[in-house]
């Protein structure tokens, strides 16, 4: 194998993993922008999407085309319940205590999932077969193309939603200034609920399309949630291209690091990047520093 072929393989592997991080990171960013909190239960939505799909396909024999939307709906219901039961009842809670609540919620969801299903890992067949395809000397699975395609569609749709719809604009208004948004008549609480609906749907979609590659189990959400969070931080918590670029960058650096330096440092690379960015550019790589007008 030529070194150039190896490099393309690292690059493609990295982009494929990075696209997954980006999808999950977007879920973090959307909730953050609407509510100012970081929802650490985002990884559990990813897990729920995958697990619901596996259960629906294996137990009821549903066609994947039917099972996938059902799984997204079920996860969204969990997202709504989570917002109603854990986030909304708290009046004037600080973002910090809400963040801690989401951590508690994620442990609860994971525990229930463990009891409801089991501790085993489950596999899902690929959407369009398992025959690898070769691109420029690097090989990818057909499922990777699905991931790229879904990521692109999701970015496109969120761009349209946030720029051209009333609800999207209202959510953006909340992200700039919640008090001002409520003064001009935006129902902030509804926007928070919307944010949870969108991000749980998005998280479960991510969980479903990655399940054929990565497999799924009740505890799959922890690590993948952290990586998605890294992607969102690198992208400066933007709900658009920033997070996507952050995810891709993280994936490629991890893959190149594992291939060219040492695979022992793979996770360390991700976290070193995260720390460096938090120290040097806390506003993210792709955002201009905001100036506050006094």
């Amino acid at each position, binding site marked *: *194998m030529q*070194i150039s072929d*190896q490099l393309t*393989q*690292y690059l493609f*592997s*990295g982009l*494929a*993993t990075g696209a*997954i991080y980006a999808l999950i990171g977007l879920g973090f960013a959307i909730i953050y922008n609407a509510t100012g909190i970081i929802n650490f239960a985002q990884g559990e939505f990813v897990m729920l999407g995958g697990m619901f799909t596996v259960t629906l396909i294996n137990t009821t024999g549903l066609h994947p085309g039917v099972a996938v939307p059902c799984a997204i709906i079920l996860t969204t219901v969990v997202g709504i319940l989570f917002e109603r039961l854990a986030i909304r009842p708290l009046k004037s809670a600080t973002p910090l205590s809400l963040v801690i609540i989401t951590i508690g919620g994620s442990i609860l969801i994971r525990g229930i999932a463990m009891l409801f299903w089991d*501790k*085993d*890992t*489950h*596999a899902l067949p690929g959407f369009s077969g*398992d025959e*690898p395809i070769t691109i420029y000397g690097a*090989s*990818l*699975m057909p499922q990777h193309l699905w991931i790229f395609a879904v990521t692109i569609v999701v970015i496109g749709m969120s761009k349209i939603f946030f720029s051209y719809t009333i609800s999207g604009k209202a959510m953006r208004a909340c992200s700039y200034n919640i008090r001002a948004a409520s003064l001009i008549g935006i129902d902030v609480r509804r926007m928070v609920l919307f944010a949870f609906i969108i991000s749980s749907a998005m998280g479960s979609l991510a969980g479903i399309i*990655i399940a054929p*590659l*990565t*497999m799924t*189990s009740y*505890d*799959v959400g*922890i*690590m*993948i949630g952290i990586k998605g969070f890294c992607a969102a931080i690198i992208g400066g918590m933007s709900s658009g291209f920033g997070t996507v670029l952050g995810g891709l960058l993280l994936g490629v650096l*991890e*893959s*190149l690091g*594992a*291939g060219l330096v040492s*695979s*022992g440092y*793979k*996770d360390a690379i991700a976290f070193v990047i995260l720390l460096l960015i938090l120290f040097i550019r806390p506003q993210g790589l792709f955002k201009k520093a905001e100036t506050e007008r006094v």
Partner: protein
Amino acid sequence: MKRLIAVLIGCVAVLHTGMALAASSVRIGALFSVTGPASFLGEPERNTLEMLVKNINDKGGIKGTKIELIIYDTQGDSTKAKQLVNKLIKNDKVVAIIGPSTTGDTMAIIEDVEKAGIPLISCAAGIKITEPVKKWVFKTPANDHLAADKIFNYMASKKQKTVALLTVSDAFGSSGREQLKALAKQKGLTVVADEVYGPKDTDMTPQLTKIKGAKPDAIICWGTNPGPAVVTRNVRQLGIKIPLYQSHGVASKKYIALAGAENAEGVLLPAGKLAVYDKLKPSDPQQKVLREYDQAYRKAYNMEASTFGGYAYDAFLMISEAIKKGATTPAQIRTSIEQSKKLVGISGIFTMSPANHNGLDLSAFEMVRIVKGDWELAR
């Protein structure tokens, strides 16, 4: 005065025999990580032990001696294991202890059982448990290096000289990695790539791309599910034709299901005989025990028996053999276990000695190849 003493002695003697008659039961303790991260070990172990004890008591016990079983859950937490072992020794006054499920838990309680003089039969695989030998401590799972040895012997028979390692970065993987490297050196094999991956990693193509570039004769992957299943899929994705060996950590049908039968085709691994008992020669002394265990477990729990449950099976077998031979005190049980010769269990055939408290040899494993989603003995 003398008469009084004689009466007293008489009373004590009567009481004593009375107690001995009434107490025709022995109390055995067990510590398993039934919940928590190592529950995949603790759960089948607890199930197995409960099933065995119930069967024996239903049949009237071992030579009329009923077994009283006390199981505690360590949750894979060494601090908890330490508290619970003291509870077993001091409050419950057990004569022997089975478990714990993990090497960490076992190491934590060794000093307690050594001090109290209670035999412990661990269900954890770590080599440190019985090397160096501790007077009161035994273990039933085979040492990892036996599995590694089995792979290298097979490689030698296929004239494979260079090897790439891909190990998981947890306790199982790092202990495996150390032993693979040491053993490779001893056997004159060259390690051309030494890569690791995280237990929750979902894509190992970067590591495998590097390994592909190093052109080894064989790849050895050391981990427990789901990592090795991902590796197996990635090997096929990258079109790598180098023989792939897995460890005994994935010797269950679950691995084939996760990796996909097509992807796992041709993968070689050292498996405990439980996975392949229906493929063994009828002359194999273990076959009958393995079949009976698997069928009983399926009947009781509607699940395939696992190697891990087998660890508890063997531990209980040793204790019940000791009781059968008339041992009742902890010290007698310990001596009797140490004298076990050719004891046919699930993990292998045990021959203990004062210098060997594990008692298994290379025959504990069989090299198997995955063919069409099933095991086949590799020759």
